């Protein structure tokens, strides 16, 4: 897509951002607007359908997916502040809706879906100026962002522009944090064993703060850090980027 032609983008907020991290959503909006884009937020949006889809309830996932396809129908980019939801739209809608009247529209949507930081870094190629104090952060990239979307570099590249931010990744960075949607509840002990290792690796970095662009991972890791009364804040990457670059309160 030619950057110059992009005047307007959709924002797909995701259900976790909606309920648990609304400020990450706001940060996404502000970051996009600062680049001169009009952000269209269809108010009737809900969720991408991932929870039932990953549980094998295709029919229920399809019902929700159809609405997403219909609500984001204009041929403009759809920006998603979450790797796994973006992956759902880009990689799973086409097969989920393959036999649906909306099959073509779903394929079209897939080609114009971007994860927020991927879009900021690769398409808009934004420049960021750090206005914060020196700090060290640890970045957790979700499995979907890393493997399904292949966008690990984008988050790191954006952070790399901030001169006062020292960025590190935990040991075994590619290891799953154990969230996996309903996996965290259905196989809760296995999931917790994975999360515990992740927390340890994150803490071992000695970073001041944990960042991720997936709310699922954030909820999972932060939930365990807090349960263990560990002193490390977790925040969505978009929010961090907005604040560091002098953005006003969200």
């Amino acid at each position, binding site marked *: 897509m030619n950057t110059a032609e992009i005047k307007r983008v959709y924002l797909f907020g995701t259900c976790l951002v909606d309920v648990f991290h609304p400020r990450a959503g*706001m940060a996404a909006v502000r970051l996009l607007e600062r680049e001169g884009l009009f952000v269209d937020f269809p108010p009737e949006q809900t969720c991408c359908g991932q929870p039932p889809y*990953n549980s094998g309830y295709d029919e229920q996932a399809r019902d929700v997916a159809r609405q997403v396809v219909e609500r984001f129908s204009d041929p403009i980019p759809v920006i998603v502040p979450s790797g796994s939801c973006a992956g759902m739209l880009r990689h799973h809608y086409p097969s989920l809706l393959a036999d649906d009247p909306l099959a073509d529209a779903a394929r079209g949507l897939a080609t114009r879906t971007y994860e927020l930081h991927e879009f900021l870094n690769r398409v808009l190629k934004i420049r960021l100026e750090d206005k914060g104090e020196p700090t060290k952060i640890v970045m957790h990239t979700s499995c979907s962002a890393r*493997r399904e979307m292949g966008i690990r570099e984008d988050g790191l590249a954006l952070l790399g522009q901030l001169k006062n931010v020292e960025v590190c990744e935990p040991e075994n960075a590619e290891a799953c944090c154990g969230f996996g949607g309903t996996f965290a509840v259905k196989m809760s002990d296995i999931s917790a064993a*994975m999360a515990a290792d992740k927390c340890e690796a994150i803490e071992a970095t000695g970073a001041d703060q944990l960042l991720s662009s997936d709310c699922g991972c954030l909820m999972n890791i932060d*939930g365990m850090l807090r*349960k263990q009364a560990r002193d490390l804040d977790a925040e969505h990457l978009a929010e961090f980027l907005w604040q560091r670059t002098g953005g006003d309160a969200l």
Partner: protein
Amino acid sequence: MSGFSTHPDHDFDVRVHDALGNEELRESFHGAMHFLRDKRRSQFPDLDALEALRDRGAAIRDRALARLPDLLEQLEKNCLRNGIQVHWADTAEEANTLITDLVRSIDGKRIVKGKSMATEEIGLNTAFEAAGFTCLESDMGEYIVQQAKETPSHIIMPAIHRNKASIARQFHEQIPETPYTEDVDELIGTGRRVLRRAFAEADVGISGVNFAVAETGTLCLVENEGNGRMSTTVPEMHIAVMGIEKVIERLADLPDLLRLLTRSATGQAITTYFNLISGPRKDNEIDGPRQVHLVLLDNGRSRIYADRQLRETLRCIRCGACMNHCPVYERLGGHAYGTVYPGPIGQVVMPQLFGLDRAGKLTQACSLNGACGEACPVRIPLPDLIRRLRHEGVTHEAGSPVKGHGRQRKAGEALIWKAWSLIHRTPWLYSLTTRFATRGRRLLPPLPQAWTRHRAPLEPAEQSFREMMARRGDSPGDQQ
């Protein structure tokens, strides 16, 4: 010892609990998996070359599967021409009967077996026991677990869950005149002494098959210890057992597949031994078996074959890389699965072979993180297949090819997803629900214990994102 429980779902939770509570096991697996991953990585320094090789590997396997019925016929014809007798077995029982009959036909009593997953799959050792034969596992790892009356916990490294102290103890107690030693070389020497004698005395040698080449009627066997070579050449009779999917078109396909197999499995560029078996001893030859038999095992594979997507399962070359990269396998080890094939490929193969009613729960033991799919040298989309099987497990759709489909469906769960879908399809209802979750956040019922046992309770924000956006009105695009 049949090599697997008949109902892997049964007590899966108990086995998971035990595995997670076993510090020694967790430590062994953690160390072993990291070691294997590092080794594999070091074998593929050039990532683009690796991706190209994976493409070729997947294409070779796809090409072979596309012509599977033809190739099997061609393989049979060429094997017969080479003097290899070919047998077909539809089920595990059929295969076991066939094999025990073959052993009886030469009045055989003593059997040695090289490493073979197919014979684990059919529970051949149990059938041998019932027939009164003794069958000694000749792969060192297999030998150790057999002696301990255990099952393999990994398809490439059967005894990976054991440490040298416990093996030293086992050898000392079970092999006469063996002093206790933790010296690995000495331990291997002890095992080798026992096995050497068994090779010399055996009437029948059993092996698996890594690949069978249709164009030449050749059986390929990859191994490191030389036991495969011994089992297939010393005894009078050699019986090779292979799943029907292991056939490939031509010899020229071998180099790429071998490269992928050994590097993905153990991080070795090549293995110590690579056997190409093309027939029994000829009249002018002084060694080799008098008879070579090939058993072609279906055991549910044609059913898998019938479905376009599930067919990808059959590309598997049994390298074990998916389990080495799986965070769940790393925490549980192989035994928790209660199956011959553990880890991601086990979660895909076993429910298809056994039926979702008996092994469907295994598909839940996955966070869909994708590490297995990324590791698989022949690009089997394991996460997609696991998800597909979850779907098969909860749907009663007519015409589903998967055995036991619909049997994992629980009324309560189905209802939850129905309600979920209704809420997420009905904006005002969704709005109301999120408003309730945010405003009434102190009123929320405590989340399922499964979450809060290990994590702090979730805290919805005071105001939802949609409310923030609504309050703000339209996006001022030119703001700033």
